[in-house]
């Protein structure tokens, strides 16, 4: 739904070249997949399940072992199609991996650098200071490889969806057979948690798809939980520090509040406790 003004605005905005309008129509037709977050308020999806995350409390940090496993799932499964362009390798240091491990992981990726002294761009192994390279050069090549759908960048997916991590977890574990009577366009899959319920992404996880070095059984729900924790960290890498700092700030503010309330009482008590009496001296 739009207000009249919004529709009018969209109309004025669309007084751009026809080519752009065709592109807009094409991207819309290619699947609501690409603009998932933009349709969160639609009523055409099952309401997200709300899980009891181990990192959601006031005093709780991320489960860092899960971030480490989640990175493995992302690396081996999700990164085939999805980027996490705002996250750098160095961000993993001290969070899920040691510095030596991150150097080794980074070296497995190639990034473009340059120009060199001859003016040529060249490929080199990534360093921890590089951002994690995505699977595609640009949006057009991503669409070309994915039947017209654009796999969104995942670095902010948990903040960019209503109910964030609950939604990602529900989506990953929510694939099921389409109900009778639901016609799916070719290349689309049924997921009741996805707005519109037809999603371009095929079910990404299968039991035993990755092999965790720590021996955790790699069930779909386990991998979903781990990768969701990883993505929640990608979206809010500051969360652990934020909550710790929050305890200090809030304590200081509550203390300041208590002291200022005492100070106020101290200053006002003579005025508040004074007694005004009336004596009629003529009586």
């Amino acid at each position, binding site marked *: *739904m*739009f*207000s*009249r*003004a*919004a529709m*009018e*605005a*969209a109309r*004025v*905005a669309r*007084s*751009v070249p026809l080519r*752009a309008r065709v*592109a*807009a129509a094409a*991207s*819309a037709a290619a699947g609501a997949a*690409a*603009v998932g*977050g*933009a*349709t*969160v*308020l*639609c009523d055409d999806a099952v309401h997200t399940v709300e899980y009891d995350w181990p990192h959601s409390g*006031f005093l709780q940090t991320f489960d860092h072992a899960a971030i480490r496993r989640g990175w493995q799932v992302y690396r081996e499964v999700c990164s085939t199609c999805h980027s996490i362009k*705002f*996250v750098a390798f160095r*961000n993993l240091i001290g969070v899920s991996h040691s510095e030596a491990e991150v150097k080794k992981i980074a070296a497995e990726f190639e990034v473009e650098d340059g120009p060199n002294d001859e003016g040529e761009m060249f490929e080199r192994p990534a360093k921890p200071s590089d951002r994690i390279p995505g699977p595609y050069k640009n949006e057009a090549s991503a669409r070309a490889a994915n039947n017209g759908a654009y796999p*969104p960048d995942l*670095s*902010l997916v948990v*903040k*960019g*969806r*209503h109910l*964030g991590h609950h939604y990602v977890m529900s989506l990953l574990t929510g694939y099921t057979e389409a109900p009778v009577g639901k016609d799916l366009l070719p290349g689309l899959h049924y997921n009741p948690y996805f*707005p519109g319920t037809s999603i371009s992404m095929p079910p990404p996880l299968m039991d035993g798809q990755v092999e965790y070095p720590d021996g955790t059984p790699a069930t779909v729900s386990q991998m979903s939980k781990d990768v969701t924790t990883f993505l929640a960290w990608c*979206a809010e*890498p*500051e969360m652990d520090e*934020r*909550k710790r*700092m*929050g*305890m200090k*700030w*809030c304590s200081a*503010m*509550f203390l*300041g*509040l208590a002291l*200022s*309330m005492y*100070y*106020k009482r101290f*200053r*006002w008590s003579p*005025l508040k406790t004074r007694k005004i009496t009336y004596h009629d001296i003529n009586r």
Partner: protein
Amino acid sequence: MSRLNLNSILSWVDSHIIDYPTAMNLNYNWSFGSSAGFCLVIQILSGAFLAMHYAGETHYAFSSVEHIMRDVKSGWLIRYMHANGASFFFIVVYAHIFRGLYYGSYMEPRQQLWWSGALIYVLMMATAFIGYVLPWGQMSFWGATVITSLFSIFPFIGKEVVMWLWGGFTVGNPTLNRFFSLHYLLPFIIAGLVFVHLGLLHKDGSNNPLGIKTKTANVNFYPYMYVKDLVAFFVLLSVLSVVIFYFPNSLGDPDNYLEADPYGTPAHIVPEWYFLPFYAILRVIPNKVGGILTMGGAIAIIFLYPLLNTSILRSANFRPIYAVVFWLFVADFCLLAWSGTTPVDDYFKVIGAVVSIGYFAFFVFGGLFVGWLEKTLAFRALSK
């Protein structure tokens, strides 16, 4: 304080800050004004630090905000402070305005004080809207598109006016760049108006819960009002801290964490919560020009309110009918905000229409009629 009064500058400080006479019966509702000033300071300071790292260019704006959130030392803290600080600024200012409505602070001789405050409020809305565009998320872009397009209502030249605002044929880089500039400029104009507001306040002094002149029951600003304002600052800071550190995104829209995409309109373009009442009024009218004019009227009537007043009593403590009408208006305003979030279908549209009428009814009915009614009833009772 005679020591201070020997110097012309220090005597000004003494007579307006230290020994400034204030009615001793001011309750904590009178602390919202100073808290609002405090919010302005928080916003200007945190904003200045954000501007050191932000790039006002469409290709970089979104990622520069992520750079602030991830790479800048405590950048997330500054940004969350600024984003949630804006919401708290509005919470405090709404409370300040409602306090003025309840205790009749808009009445003679303080009409100009009310008008200067209303002007600050309008500028605040402009600043907040422009600031929300800067992160260049989906809501930023589409919000900017919707709001700037409101100016297309000018007959004949509407489209040209909108393109002039955009600096192009659509919301784009020139728009973002000028919004960044304006977002840095407007707060200083607001700060200037705050001094005008304070100057007008000190002309007649604060109103008070009794709504009468209290020349015999005044206390010095320092330390009496200072300590109360200090308590109010700490209440504000305590609540703000809890939100910043534990619920930093609860007042925002998830769609603004998606980068602006001119080809993908969000399913629901919703403004920030503090604009929802006016947004609800805008969309309840099924006609574009009518909707925009009605929304403009909703703001204009705030300016008109001192002229609509017929009451001779200020404080609603002594105006039983007005007090009921006032609290109905508070409920109506909240419902109006809620109505701005609902889908426009038949059932919600009716509620939206009713509360929109309620909004205007308060200003006209509560100003003109209730004052006259109370006066008539009071004189009738007295004459018996």
